[in-house]
């Protein structure tokens, strides 16, 4: 049985999703539901912390692609942080760093949102 957990945590002006475990075609729905909840609550400044994400397949990456357009239309963004080299490698192979902001640490992504909001 695949173990995957997504938990929402409030930050300063942002919503943080903490991912844990294995994100594949079986568990991708859990992440979809989390994004749907955030968008339903009009929370568009989203930081996804991948520190405890052990594994991702293209089904998991597809979830980010499904929601990024709606989020950006609402002047928000999905910023990804704290990836292990193994997980980053998959994002990199699929060219995600071209279109998604990926930071080493969550605090960098949060301050990026705060700077954008101030302008």
């Amino acid at each position, binding site marked *: 049985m695949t173990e995957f957990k997504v938990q929402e945590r409030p930050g300063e002006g942002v919503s943080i999703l903490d991912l844990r475990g*294995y994100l*594949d075609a079986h568990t991708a729905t859990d992440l979809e539901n989390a994004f749907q909840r955030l968008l339903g609550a009009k929370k568009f400044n989203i930081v996804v912390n991948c520190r405890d994400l052990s594994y991702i397949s293209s089904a998991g*990456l*597809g979830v980010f*692609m499904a929601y990024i357009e709606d989020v950006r239309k609402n002047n928000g963004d999905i910023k990804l942080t704290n990836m292990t080299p*193994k997980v980053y490698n998959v994002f990199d*192979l*699929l060219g995600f760093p071209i279109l998604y902001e990926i930071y080493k640490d969550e605090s960098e992504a949060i301050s990026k949102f705060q700077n954008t909001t101030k302008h």
Partner: protein
Amino acid sequence: MSSASKTISKIVSSSTESLSDIREFVAGQARTHGFPEDEVANIVLAVDEACTNIIKHAYRFASDKQIEISVGRQGREFEVIISDDGRSFDPAALRNPDLKEHLTHYRRGGLGVYLMKKLMDTVEYQFQPGQRNHVRLVKFLPASPSR
């Protein structure tokens, strides 16, 4: 040293719930054949993508079917053959997507095939009407330190 190893097979149900079992099985076999952990991860991901495609496209999420994963060595090749009895899909349609175009239009799907080709040395499909479908994934074995 023989050029071929005994093939070991695992049969799982065609449910996304099986993916973790599949990954565990393939990782164990890849380690047994001497691959380092980064290569084990690549092989596991490629097999996950192939099986996910079978569940989605060949079986259209019907979870009462079977997928067979056979692993063995042929000479310098570590070979994973994944077989199913579902709908066959056109191999010509499995060409590499234009990644940038794909991403800028936020298209999901199709990325699994691209990943498989990036992660493995060979990806081959065998579709024949009335017969089982096969996907063959090959990774060259690491060079033996004794040679």
